C-alpha cells in the first residue's frame, strides 16, 4: 500500500537518483533532444527536497500535489508539465485511493493527456505502459524496467523534440524513458508495492 511515509522515501530516492545521474540524462538528451533533461529534473528534485523538508505529510494527496506543483514551476523543459501533470493527477486519485495501480494509471493518463503520446512513439510513455501492466499483474522487476527501457532504443521518435530527427532518432535510449525507469526502480526500492 502506498503510504505517505513510503512515498516520501520513494520521492527522495528518485530525486537522489536523478541528481546522481544528471550528466548521463543530459548525455542521452544531447543525442536526440536539447541536452537539458538531467539538469532540468535535478533542479526540480532540489526544489522538491526543500519543500519536503519544511512540510510534514499526513496524507498522500498533499504530498503528490506538492511534488507535481513544484515540478511544474521549477522544471523548464517538457518534463516539467509531463511529470508535473502525472503527480497532480496522482494527487487527485490519492484523495480516494492508496492503491498503487490506480495511482500510477492516473499518472499515465495525465501524461498522455498532456503530451498526447501513444505507445511506440519513443517517449516516457513507453516505460510507463509496460511497468503499469507489470504492477497490475504483480510482476514488476528491475529486469522488466530495464528491458522496457532498452526497447525505446530501436524506436523512431514521432513525438517530442526527438521527432524532428526522424530516422536519426533510432539507436538512442529515450531520456524521458530513462528518468521514468529511475522513478520505477526507486519505487521498488522504497517498498511502495509491498503489503
Amino acid at each position, binding site marked *: 500500500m502506498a503510504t505517505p511515509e513510503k512515498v516520501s522515501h520513494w520521492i527522495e530516492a528518485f530525486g537522489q537518483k536523478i541528481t546522481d545521474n544528471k550528466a548521463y540524462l543530459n548525455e542521452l538528451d544531447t543525442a536526440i533532444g536539447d541536452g537539458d533533461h538531467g539538469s532540468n529534473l535535478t533542479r526540480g528534485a532540489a526544489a522538491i527536497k526543500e519543500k519536503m523538508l519544511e512540510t510534514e505529510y499526513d496524507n498522500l494527496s498533499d504530498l503528490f500535489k506538492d511534488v507535481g506543483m513544484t515540478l*511544474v514551476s521549477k522544471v*523548464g523543459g*517538457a518534463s516539467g*508539465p509531463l511529470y508535473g501533470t502525472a503527480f497532480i493527477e496522482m494527487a487527485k486519485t490519492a484523495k480516494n485511493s492508496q492503491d498503487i495501480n490506480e495511482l500510477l494509471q492516473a499518472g499515465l493518463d495525465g501524461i498522455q493527456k*498532456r*503530451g498526447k503520446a501513444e505507445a511506440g512513439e519513443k517517449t516516457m510513455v513507453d516505460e510507463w505502459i509496460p511497468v503499469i501492466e507489470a504492477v497490475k499483474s504483480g510482476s514488476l522487476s528491475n529486469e522488466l524496467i530495464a528491458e522496457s527501457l532498452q526497447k525505446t532504443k530501436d524506436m523512431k521518435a514521432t513525438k*517530442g*523534440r526527438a521527432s524532428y530527427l526522424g530516422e536519426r532518432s533510432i539507436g538512442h535510449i529515450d531520456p524521458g524513458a530513462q528518468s521514468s525507469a529511475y522513478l520505477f526502480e526507486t519505487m521498488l526500492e522504497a517498498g511502495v508495492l509491498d503489503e
Partner: protein
Amino acid sequence: MSRSHGILLVTHVEEVADGLAKLLGQVAGDVTIKTAGGTEDSDVGTSFDKISAALDTFEEDNILAFYDLGSAKMNLEMAMESSDKDITLYDTAFVEGAYTAASLLQTDVGVDMINEQLEPLKVKE
C-alpha cells in the same frame, strides 16, 4: 483605442518572443502583445509561472496564444487551465501565425475570419 483581443507569445528563448513582438508591433501598434519567453532565470525553456503571470496582466479577456515548440504548448495549456481568460491556442507556424493574427486584429477583423486565415498555417499538433 482598446481592443477586446490580445496576443500572447510563448517561446523557449526570451529574445525570440521579444523579437517577434517587435516585428508584430510594426503592423499592429494598437494591439496588446505580451510575451513569456524562457524560464524564470531567463534560461532556455518555458515557465508555467511566467506564462500565468503574463496572462494575468492582460486587460483584454480574449487572448490569442502562439508558441514555438511542444513543451511551450504544454506549459501554455496548463496556464490556460488555471486562468479566467478566454484563451485560444494556435498550432500555427509561429511567426507567420502570430503575424497574420496581429495584422488582422489591427484592422478590426473578427476572430472568425482570423481563424479562417490561420487554418492553413497550422503546422503542429
